[in-house]
């Protein structure tokens, strides 16, 4: 059995084909929700484009279920997945934009990474040349990176999932282009994230971990590309890690006293649910102690770095409209309720 190029702990055929094959498998499993356009390498909501504002997102692969798992009713209309950890190309984004445009314009949800921003920029220019109105929404919620002249700015992480769900509900209820984009931006403005890694991950192309992390150590302030974080520290307890995350996001977000919040406790891919719920318990208790009301929550591995062990906290300060849109029905391969 030598079909796998580099021997590694991976379940795949040819590393160069893993993204395409995975997209085909997703569409085979969820044909009622998504259609895979193999030529354009995009996933499109099944059925005719709904007569509404289109919602498109995309980025490198390896973050599953984001984005492909969020295509369906009440969330994304199309996703353009790039190679693992590599932003997709403008042609994919343009094809996705064309596929979902129903004359009401298309919102691009773009995570703030140099590659994603540049490629979406070129795609938006092309789309506008074709007469499609495009609103780009930049997601940059990661407080581990200061937004300064000395960085590419904050990374887009967990808030992406929340923005896609909430803006998707707004589009589904018939909001116009400006409103859908505005709601996505509001989610981004009211959300902050912070992540911690207990291990690296193994990109299929290289077949080996991006970095080594000895037992008993952790990387704090990580992104979602298996990259090292801002700093390496001795591994903390779940309580200490919860405190670290909450301090980072709350101090930056500065929510109103007694604010209603949505804590999104996300696994990076390789952290067992057993541990993730221990962390959730520590986080919800600490939020309560700070007078914040966890009125909604999301717990699970929704924006991942392949099999990286670790977790991130995204805290969204809710308002009545965001809460209502969060509760609205959603039916996608990875997120489903009310349907």
């Amino acid at each position, binding site marked *: 059995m030598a079909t796998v190029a580099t021997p590694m702990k991976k379940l795949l055929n040819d590393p160069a084909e893993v993204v395409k094959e995975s997209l085909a498998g997703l569409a085979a499993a969820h044909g009622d929700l998504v259609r895979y356009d193999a030529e354009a390498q995009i996933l499109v909501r099944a059925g005719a484009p709904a007569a509404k504002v289109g919602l498109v997102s995309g980025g490198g692969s390896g973050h599953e279920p984001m984005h492909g798992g969020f295509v369906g009713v009440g969330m994304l209309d199309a996703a353009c997945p790039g*190679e693992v950890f590599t932003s997709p190309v*403008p042609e994919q984004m343009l094809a996705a934009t064309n596929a979902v445009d129903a004359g009401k314009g298309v919102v691009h949800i773009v995570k703030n990474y140099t590659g994603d921003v*540049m490629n979406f920029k070129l795609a938006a220019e092309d789309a506008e040349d074709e007469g499609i109105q495009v609103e780009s929404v930049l997601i940059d919620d990661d407080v581990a990176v200061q937004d300064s002249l*000395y960085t*590419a700015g904050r990374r887009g992480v967990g808030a992406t999932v929340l923005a896609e769900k909430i803006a998707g509900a707004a589009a589904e209820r018939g909001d116009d282009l400006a409103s859908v984009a505005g709601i996505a931006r509001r989610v981004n403005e009211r959300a902050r994230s912070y992540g911690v890694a207990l291990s690296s991950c193994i990109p299929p192309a*290289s077949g080996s971990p*991006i970095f080594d992390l000895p037992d008993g150590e952790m990387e704090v302030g990580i992104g979602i590309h298996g*990259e090292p974080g*801002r700093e390496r520290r001795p591994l903390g307890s779940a309580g200490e890690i919860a405190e670290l995350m909450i301090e980072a996001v709350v101090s930056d977000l500065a929510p109103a006293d007694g604010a209603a919040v949505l804590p999104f406790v996300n696994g990076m891919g390789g952290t067992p649910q057993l541990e993730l719920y221990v962390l959730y318990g520590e986080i919800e208790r600490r939020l309560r102690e700070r007078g914040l009301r966890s009125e909604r929550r999301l717990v699970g591995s929704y924006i991942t770095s392949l099999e990286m062990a670790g977790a991130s906290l995204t805290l969204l300060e809710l308002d009545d409209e965001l809460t209502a849109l969060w509760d609205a029905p959603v039916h996608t391969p990875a997120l489903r309720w009310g349907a």
Partner: protein
Amino acid sequence: MHTTTIHAWMTTIAESVKDRRDYLTQLDAAIGDGDHGVNMDRGFDAVAKALAAQNGAVPPGKLLTLAGKTLVSTVGGASGPLWGTAFRRAGRSLGNAEEFDGRDLLAALRAALEGVVELGAAQPGDKTMVDALGPAIDALADSLDAGEPLERALAAASAAAEDGARATVPLQARKGRASYLGERSIGHQDPGATSAALVMAALQRAVEQES
């Protein structure tokens, strides 16, 4: 120089990027996300194929433009749009001429760098491909001004790109993924600057073969 020079340049880039694929990826794993070698290899592989499909009649500038478009549509990431824009601008600068000389080449490379800076807004010293391309273009200009033959001038440019790439090691990244690491980006060579040096070395070899 003619269309054949561009063909030789692109195929030489494709070969050397393939050879150094894992090395570039390792550099990117240290301060990025470990895909730069794969990205460049995928892109220039496609460029080589696209150019091979062209008949000889296509002028050099159009070939560079085709190379740029191919990179944009196959690479992704940061390097895709950046290198794609670079070669498109270089192609536009050469226009429809059947031939080009050292000065034309210099102008094309300058246009390429301008395109990269417009899109990516990187300053010299930000630890990016700009830190290899900039010095290379300056060296080329100086040598040509000094009346040196093109081969020597391109050798100087290639060496300057090489030095520029190595000089990114002590820098703290201010653009791209590596900037997320803050001070931890110090002490590592920038992958994009490294592949930029490969691009310049390939140019030198391509022109040598010609003459």
